[in-house]
């Protein structure tokens, strides 16, 4: 096990190095000038030149890269060009909402999608199956922001049972925290839920046609035992895989969801940084997203052991 973990940890190094170089290069090749954005529209050209010099943006590309790389290797992500705050601090401020949103979404999604997929497989070909899979197609088809607007209109504007926007930290109490996450989680999780439900259906359907299921059924097991104790565990590996892959979908989705629901998370941080060319922030957040993705995949590999005891590392 430890060999696997260490090997995978070492494998992250070239991935992160590639991400770092590519992101840095793209950012500096792309048009846009943070100094001009900082200075504002009333600024004179000379004021902009002064700010650019002060921020070191007039240095050659190679010098800027070496400086950034040296600092990053020392664990220093630098300071935001705009707010003058350490990038590490900005990320910590924004981490909680994004982590909370991602975890809540994953829990809600898995809790709903897996039973839906199992039910559809059990009733394969029936109207229940067709209805559930139609909903799954709809879930795929709607963009996150459209789902967000529909949910806001229904549950916040019309029924007035949930807040329209914002985020409340756990310190404000569990209920306010949860209330503010319900709609964003549903909006963000809709396509993810559809994906898991379809994969679950296909995997369970395949297992249901196997001999051991027929034997279990002949022994007189209840439907619940049959589906959740025998079929689902044997169909779990592809489901767990897709849940892991889905984290990438969620990381992409949080950017939109956080903007729609005014949640101050990492997604919004990086979008704002991109629009204003706040290079240190963009680079740091994208590195964190890459690390997260690598480690989620590692966690999924380790989870295979739990869902299928035959697997050994």
């Amino acid at each position, binding site marked *: 096990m430890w060999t696997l973990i260490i090997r995978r940890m070492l494998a992250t190094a070239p991935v992160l190095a590639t991400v770092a170089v590519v992101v840095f290069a793209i950012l500096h090749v792309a048009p846009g*000038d943070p100094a001009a954005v900082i200075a504002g*529209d009333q600024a004179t050209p000379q004021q902009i030149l002064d700010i650019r010099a002060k921020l070191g943006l007039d240095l050659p590309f190679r010098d800027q890269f070496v400086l950034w790389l040296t600092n990053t290797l020392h664990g220093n992500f630098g300071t935001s060009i705009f707010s003058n705050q350490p990038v590490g601090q900005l990320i910590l401020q924004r981490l909680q909402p994004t982590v909370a949103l991602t975890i809540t979404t994953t829990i809600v999604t898995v809790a709903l999608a897996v039973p839906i997929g199992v039910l559809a497989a059990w009733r394969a070909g029936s109207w229940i199956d067709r209805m559930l899979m139609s909903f799954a197609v709809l879930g795929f088809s709607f963009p996150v922001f459209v789902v967000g607007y529909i949910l806001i209109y229904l549950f916040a504007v019309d029924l007035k049972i949930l807040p329209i926007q914002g985020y409340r930290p756990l310190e404000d109490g569990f209920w306010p925290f949860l209330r503010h996450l319900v709609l964003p989680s549903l909006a963000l999780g809709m396509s993810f839920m559809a994906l898991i439900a379809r994969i679950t259906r296909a995997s369970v359907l395949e297992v249901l046609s196997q001999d051991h299921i027929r034997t279990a059924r002949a022994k007189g097991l209840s439907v619940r035992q049959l589906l959740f104790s025998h079929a689902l565990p044997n169909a779990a590996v592809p489901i767990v895989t897709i849940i892991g892959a889905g984290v990438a979908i969620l990381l992409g989705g949080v950017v939109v969801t956080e903007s729609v629901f005014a949640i*101050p998370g990492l997604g919004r941080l990086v979008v704002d940084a991109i629009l204003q060319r706040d290079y240190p922030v963009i680079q740091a957040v994208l590195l964190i997203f890459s690390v997260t993705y690598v480690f989620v995949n590692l966690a999924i590999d380790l989870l295979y052991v739990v869902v299928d005891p035959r697997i050994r590392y």
Partner: protein
Amino acid sequence: MGRFTRRGLMTSAAGVAAGVSLFSIGRTGRAAPSSKSVIRSVPIGNLKVVDPIWTTAYITRNHGYMVWDTLFSLDEKNQPQPQMVDTWEISSDKLTYTFSLRPGLKWHDGGKVTSADCVASIRRWAARDGMGQALMSFTASLDTVDERTFKLVLKQPIGFVIEALAKIDSNVPFMMPERLAKTDPNTQITEVIGSGPFRFAAKEWVPGSKVVYEKFEDYVPRKEPASQAAGGKVVYVNRVESVYMPDAGVAMAALASGEIDLHESPATDLLKMVEGNPDVVITPNDPHGYVLFMVLNHLHPPFDKKEVREALLWGTKQEEYLATMAGDKKRYETCAAMFGCGLPNESKAGTEPLLNPNIEKAKAMIKAAGAEGAKVVLMDPTDNDLHKAALIGAQTLRRLGFNVEVQAMDWSTLVQRRASKAPPAQGGWNTFITNATSTGIANPLVNNFAKNCEQAWYGWPCDQRVVDLGRQWALETDPKKQHELIDKLQAVHLESVTYVPLGMYRPAIIYRKELSGIIRGPALFYWNIQKKA
């Protein structure tokens, strides 16, 4: 190789629960005041830069008004009034200005406001601001006299000393503690300590998302009633929580439902969502609003020819732009003045083409100049409200016979590219549309967009008459003669077409009826506002 088992993993997973402590990372303790004492608002943008001298961004200017105070301020008639200054004297030769500060002024960290703070603050502001630079170019000395008094001595009499210190728009001459004001003007300050009516709650600041201001209990307001940026800044609430919402529709819904109290910059096309809502007030808050204008690149064809630029004045229908930007007719008016309409330097000189457009005449002028069918590169900032005006601009230019190439880009790209003097085919440009507050262009010294030759803004217009008349205006101390110079200056601007004025519009603010006492002005001032239970 270690054996990896299901039991082992489950045990390890328990440790992950410890990760819940993550939820306390980056959080800070805070009080939870009752909603009555808090105004929750959506600002005009997300505050990322806190130094109003380092940037001219309006969101930072607005932040500045919360935290810092000024020596003088403009009242609702745009007349300078003392603010931090108690008394001031001008010598008979009009060369020496002596200012005394009000007693009892304090910084948010408890220190006393002194004349040394003000001298350092004026110097830092003047290093960045156009009007400040002009003031300093005529200044022989600026020194403290005692703890509450300082003296400014001029090389020759000028007519704008008090106007400069009362400047209401970016960069506003905010007074800062000497230790902050001595920061290099090209470096952002690291502390937000002012003597204004609100304290900046640094620990609650989430850059780009949320800013919290707390009432400064030791602030001593003036006795006069509040009037635009002048008068008594009496604060009636404990806190202002300013939360940036990137989604315009969600922000509107949040106001309609009462989750927020005030929206400083609602999307014009979404105002219908709250029209008719008895709990919501829609009103233009800035009486002078914004001016919109088309910037022309004077270096490259076709706008290097004066005749072609002049044709644009005849071929522009301001109403088309204004209706797009402001929607309701009550919130815009045609305005061809270079230094703002309804302001002291409004002039009618040279405005005939813009106020009486004639498309056929414009087309004929373009044809005569040999520019018919000429390619025009128009930069369109699609992530900015100005995108709407850019589309109208493209259609206007097409109507006049130009071959328009609309190049879509984000604002950050536009502000970089506008600095390029290269020909349009090599990464340059011909035109773009931008805006400014009317008070931000209210005289020849503050209107950076209208400067010419060596001081020219992007577009690089150069007519030496503009430079000479601008200097004469700065030196003139007689208001009547100053206005005569404004007439001449505007006539020259519009004759040489520095840029194309596209009119004036007043964006609306919206707020819940529980709020009262909102002061009209170019920025949203939070003093004087009361919130009913």
